[in-house]
């Protein structure tokens, strides 16, 4: 298959080859898993649910529970209302979640099921037990990408849970974006270090990186399918009383923060994902302002110092190296900035998710250092491969699918983003914050130096680098 990408680039309007994105519902499913005792529900054919569960399972190596409306031809013709009503009844009876988080699929979107009305009616008729929730969001697969789906479900959480209780709290809201459970854990650690009480949502830590603790005694009971992690409902309900909402990554988190601002006048601060040195500095600065302190705690300052130390120790190996970066827009924006701050040259930057803002942001980051860089949103890996065939890079950074290109073109490769189907670690070790930055540095350096050790002629092969 590796020989099947031609070097010549021609216009393609009607076709995606080797996609760099996937569809909305899987992002909604992932976000929903970040609520404690929540069962994501896919309103459509069985296949969607099976595929999303399999894909998330492959990425996180964890059980992923989600139910389906099991559409058949009848539902496609007459609408999915009776399926959803039956599903709500069955799910509460069998799986006993606190929340059912429903997302649509291209099928239920197109036949026009009105989920708000169906859910309201189900609640009125007593299908939803006291104290339990059914929330929803719309995730047509033919618009946006999995990042859009994540954003939509996170916004759905605001729409359903945010209440103004007139109880002014010291806490802040933090939306961590479409990142790994380990990143959400690291962000919570930073907030704790800063002594900032907070509601972090969604929060998949301890859901999709749950520790191995053996089978509980009551195995097989509904209680056991819900891991200990996830944002609690009472916390979600209190988000309307917070001082401020910090949203990390505009593509994944901005809509929810703005929705909350519109409902409750809680100011939304949208910033980049804190990946790399500069974006993390900005994030910590916002935390300092929010906490109304001048200096970060020593632990955070020391982490930063260690990260900079690594950058200095090995800067010569990064300098002027050409790199190609692809993946989800929020990650790619911060990572591109990080690469630039290491002296690297990101000559190709691509995301599959549509959005002109992406192009503008990357252009801004690269305008002085790599003015001729090729930048594309709504791109695919076939195009990226063609670019690389025309001018190779020293390092490729992106999700698992990049391994085809890395092998074909013999390029060092760092796995980063979603999905990673062939390695472990990504869901356990953060890439956000200074600690995450150190891990990224290690991975990138290892890739470059392993390659150097492999390629160097005998006389240049040295013990000390």
């Amino acid at each position: 298959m590796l020989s099947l990408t031609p070097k010549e680039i021609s216009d393609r309007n009607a076709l995606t080859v080797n996609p760099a994105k996937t569809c909305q519902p899987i992002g909604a499913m992932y976000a929903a898993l970040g609520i404690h005792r929540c069962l994501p529900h896919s309103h459509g054919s069985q296949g969607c649910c099976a595929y999303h569960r399999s894909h998330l399972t492959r990425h996180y190596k964890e059980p992923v529970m989600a139910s389906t409306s099991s559409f058949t031809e009848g539902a496609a013709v007459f609408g999915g209302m009776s399926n959803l009503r039956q599903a709500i009844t069955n799910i509460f009876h069998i799986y006993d979640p606190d929340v059912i988080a429903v997302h649509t699929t291209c099928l239920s979107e197109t036949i026009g099921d009105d989920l708000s009305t169906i859910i309201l009616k189900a609640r009125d008729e007593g299908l939803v037990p006291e104290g339990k929730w059914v929330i929803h969001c719309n995730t047509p697969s033919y618009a946006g990408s999995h990042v859009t789906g994540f954003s939509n479900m996170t916004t759905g959480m605001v729409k359903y849970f945010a209440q103004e209780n007139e109880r002014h709290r010291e806490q802040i809201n933090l939306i961590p974006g479409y990142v790994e459970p380990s990143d959400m854990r690291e962000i919570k650690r930073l907030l704790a270090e800063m002594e900032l009480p907070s509601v972090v949502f969604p929060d998949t830590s301890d859901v999709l990186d749950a520790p191995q603790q053996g089978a509980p005694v009551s195995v097989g009971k509904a209680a056991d399918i819900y891991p200990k992690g996830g944002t609690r409902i009472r916390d979600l309900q209190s988000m309307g009383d917070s001082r401020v909402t910090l949203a990390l990554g505009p593509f994944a988190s901005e809509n929810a923060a703005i929705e909350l601002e519109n409902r409750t006048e809680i100011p939304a601060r949208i910033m980049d994902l804190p990946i790399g040195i500069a974006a993390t500095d900005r994030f910590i600065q916002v935390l300092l302002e929010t906490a109304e302190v001048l200096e970060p705690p020593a632990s955070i300052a020391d982490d930063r110092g260690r990260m900079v130390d690594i950058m200095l120790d090995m800067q010569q190996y990064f300098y002027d190296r050409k790199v190609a970066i692809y993946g989800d827009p929020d990650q790619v924006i911060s990572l591109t900035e990080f690469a630039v701050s290491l002296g690297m040259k990101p000559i190709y930057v691509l995301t599959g998710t549509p959005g002109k803002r992406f192009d503008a942001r990357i252009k801004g980051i690269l305008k002085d250092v790599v003015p001729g860089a090729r930048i594309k949103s709504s791109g695919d890996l076939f195009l990226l491969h063609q670019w690389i065939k025309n001018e190779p890079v020293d390092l490729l950074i992106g999700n698992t699918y990049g391994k085809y290109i890395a092998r074909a073109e013999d390029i060092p490769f760092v796995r980063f983003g979603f999905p990673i189907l062939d390695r472990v670690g990504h869901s356990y070790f953060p890439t956000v914050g200074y600690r995450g930055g150190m891990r990224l540095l290690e991975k990138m350096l290892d890739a470059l130096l392993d390659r150097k050790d492999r390629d160097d002629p005998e006389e240049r092969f040295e013990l000390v680098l």
Partner: protein
Amino acid sequence: MSCDRESLAGAVSQRACVFCGSRVVLYPIADALHLVHGPVGCAVYTWDIRGALSSGTELHRLSFSTDLQEKDVIFGGEEKLAGALHELIDRYHPRAAFVYSTCIVGIIGDDLDAICKRVSREKGIPVIPVKSEGFKGGKRDGYMAACAALSRLVGTGDTSGIGPFSLNIMGDFNLAGEIWIIREYFEKMGIQVVANITGDGRVDDIRRAHGAALNVVQCSGSTLYLAQSMEKEFGIPYLRVSYLGIEDMTESLYAVAGFFGDPHMMERTRKLVRDELAVLYPQLQKYRQALRGKKAAIYVGGAFKAFSLVKTFRLLDMEVVMVGSQTGRKEDYLELKEITSDGTVIVDDSNPLELASFLRGKKVDVFVGGVKERPIAYKLGIPFCDHNHERKEALEGFIGMLNFTREIYSSVMSPVWQFVPGRKR
């Protein structure tokens, strides 16, 4: 017991859809173009996940999607599809093209037949619509859609040069190169293999598959319909076979030799089995001793695979305490009951809760399943063996029996399990 019915709305079902079924069957045809007409997700989730190997071209491993957008849903995606087909056929010169319809295409009503017919005429290759709208049923309906698509190829090629001792290998997907093992057995028996349907498949072979004297059908679900229609249309009989485990592998080879009724072939087959077993048996013994009495649980896609696994575990002196499938039929489950001992739990389309409770309740030593079962087993601290499409080890044939045994052994014996709380051994 009930089975073979639709899952309830609200189930955490392990089942998939029509598209999934047709895609996994047809995708291993390596020199065909496979274009998914729909939103991007359907193409992404089936992109190179199955590990179906090819001995040559690998066009099947790329992911092509029309990536339908909102405006296509409103105005229709027909011209987009035609444009994509033109472009891809010009670039790759495939021997045929399969166009998969997805849920959304069924709803917006794109006329796939008309587009495929038109492009086929313009480009001079078969362009075949695969009617696989997800909501029209389960995986098994997808197998039928795939077989219907294949039927349009079979019978269109030149059958000259095909001898009387000839067959098509059906229902094998060449995971980890398994079809190459099986082909070699048949060739050693003196049989000409006309077409692989569908692992390591080639369009031109499939077009002349109707020249073969016999179809051997593995994976009862996926290609049985094609075998049945070839019997009806071309008078080609079929045999249902399984290449998993010594018992079923041997029986299958003898059944094929028996079909041709040639004493020399039967003698060659006996020798083949003898030679293979002479190598295999001594190697199996040490694993067998270690595994004796251990308890196994099986949850796989098709019932036919479950039969073979039950026999395989019996050969290893292991006890099967649970067995189930996602798509079995009533007669399959009756047969499972027949070949297992009393007290064995038999399940259909089980949900993860039930699975977890059986696994724990039966104190299982090893669990055989697929991608979604692996983390369930691991979370319970139970050794696991993938017998679906994510394995990298050939499990078919005599060598496959050894590989399987080794894998079960290494999983059960791995020292890591002792660190799982509550599972000290």
